[in-house]
């Protein structure tokens, strides 16, 4: 029982982290065709926001609650800045957005190194998250449960935003047919900006969750970005349900491999599995059916 539940629970928590990181990517990659390699650095920005909040709001119990919206704003504004200054000039050149954002990621990482130092800073866990609960004989930390709840909340929030708000209607219209949406009076430019803001902001929230588990450090983003992209690729473009299933699958599968072998072998095997999976479904788990050529 233990050999099953331990990786299952730990993997679910990892999957939740991947989900938050991947949600923003799926939004910008799947819906706008922008491959944002600096997304990991937005995650890092969220983690540092959590750290800075704790320097100001010294009451640890409250600081995380302040950090969440603050991180959303900080990462969101970074994303908005990136969109307005660079990305706006290169829509429909997806591979170039990838390269440009690699450069931006390098800049942000070095900036973090210069401002906060190469060593990581600790983020203190609030008292109400410091503890664990016994699930099937396994001590499950509250922090992991918090991550999962946060991921589900982010997912629900994004889903509601897309489904029920007028902004959501506009973005769905833009995704389905950009030119037609524009003809119908949708300002696709502002839709792009808001999408990028929200997508990047989600990375900030993910960063707070990561900071509770591993603190902050300048290379924090690079740890998650590739796995998050694999999740988006495996899930299929523009499909939230695909992203959700892929995130938890990758998280749990990696946890099982880590348990049996080692964390590095797990990474290699998970990668291999994604390649094998793409053999069966080259467009990911769920695909938008179009009449276009593959």
């Amino acid at each position, binding site marked *: 029982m233990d050999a099953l539940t331990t990786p299952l629970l730990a993997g679910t928590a990892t999957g939740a982290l991947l989900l938050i990181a991947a949600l923003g990517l799926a939004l910008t990659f799947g819906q706008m065709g922008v491959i944002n390699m600096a997304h990991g650095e937005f995650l890092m920005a969220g983690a540092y926001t959590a750290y800075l909040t704790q320097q100001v709001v010294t009451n640890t119990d409250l600081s995380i609650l302040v950090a969440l919206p603050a991180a959303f704003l900080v990462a969101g504004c970074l994303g908005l800045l990136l969109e307005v200054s660079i990305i706006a000039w290169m829509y429909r050149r997806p591979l170039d957005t*990838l390269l440009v954002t690699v*450069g931006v990621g390098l800049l942000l990482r070095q900036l973090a190194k210069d401002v906060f130092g190469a060593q990581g800073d600790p983020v203190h866990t609030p008292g109400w998250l410091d503890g664990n609960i016994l699930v099937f004989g396994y001590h499950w930390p509250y922090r992991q449960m918090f991550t999962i709840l946060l991921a589900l909340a982010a997912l629900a929030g994004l889903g509601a935003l897309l489904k029920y708000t007028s902004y959501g209607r506009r973005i769905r219209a833009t995704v389905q047919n950009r030119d037609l949406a524009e003809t119908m009076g949708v300002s696709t430019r502002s839709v792009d900006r808001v999408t990028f803001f929200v997508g990047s902001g989600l990375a900030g929230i993910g960063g707070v969750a990561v900071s509770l588990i591993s603190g902050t450090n300048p290379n924090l983003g690079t740890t998650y970005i590739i796995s998050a992209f694999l999740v988006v690729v495996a899930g299929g473009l523009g499909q939230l349900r695909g992203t959700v299933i892929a995130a938890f699958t990758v998280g749990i599968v990696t946890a099982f491999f880590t348990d049996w072998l080692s964390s590095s072998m797990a990474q*290699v095997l998970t990668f291999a599995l*994604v390649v094998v999976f*793409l053999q069966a479904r080259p467009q990911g788990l769920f695909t938008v059916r179009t009449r276009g050529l593959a």
Partner: protein
Amino acid sequence: MSSLRRWSRTWGPLLGIALVAIALLVVAPAVLSPFRLNNLGKYVCWAIAGVGIGLAWGRGGMLVMGQGVFFGLGGYAMAMHLKLEAAMATGGPAAIPDFMVLYGDATMPGWWEPFRSGTFTVFAIVALPAVVATVLGYAIFKRRVKGAYFAILSQALAVAFATLLIATIKQTGGFNGLNQFTQFFGYNLYDPVNKQMIYSIAAVVLVVCLLVVWQLYRSRFGELLVATRDAEERVRFLGHDPANVKLVAFVLAAVMASIGGALFAPITGIISPSDVDATASILLIAGVALGGRALLLGPALGAIAVGYGRTTLSESFPDQWTYFLGLLFVVVILFFPSGLGSAWSQITSRLRREGAA
């Protein structure tokens, strides 16, 4: 079209290759100190890999973000041989590398054994990446995985490879990699004459790679590759299989990266996971993007320039170098997507268009 222009279009590239050859093989050894020449040799190794990236990415449209893997396959294959040579030189034919004694129980994994043979090592440097690239490329291209999907998968490969190397410290030296070579196929590596010989080998290999790619670009295959990049579906409808075309370019690029890596190990005296991981792969891409990915000489010259900038700038400004590299990425991709090598023609054609309007 004037006959001069036609002449320059046919023979201009060859002239360019000749100039590169003269600069690397005649001028550089005459004017550079042995230390600088050895550094140049390092950039030449990156340039060899860069020529392959130019082929796969510039002409074939496959953004290979994990070339570090193939660079590493060649580099580690060579380093294993050099390590065994060094061990055998001091401890007889059954001696094993020092780090295995240090980290482990002084037993050598069986797959190291064939690398005692120099012939096998040279064979492996070409065959190993070819086999890996064929298997991977076949799996990926046949299922029409492309564009961003391909770029991300190839980068994930580099991350996984570096992680694997770091984890297997007893077999590969882990984070420290393989270093402290003394011999290169029987030649003493501390002798400056031999170091210059290895540099010359690297320079000749680069020139040969450029010639191979020049011939390829002139051939039907080169046309097919560009056609596949620009309109894969049309190529398919014309009865060709784009997957095979891409596979050939991908495998060639992998072999070139591997040979670059194999020469990198004796020139720098070390190969470690940081030479093959995602960042290293991105640095290779940076050189190619800077020089001009679709040009013949662009990738090679760009790689040498980035290598030079990396060494020179990081000597005097170790931290600011990263800012510089990041800005370079942003500025080049934003304003000169086809590289600095094309900047001039890009500016003149824009001026001409504005003049006509």
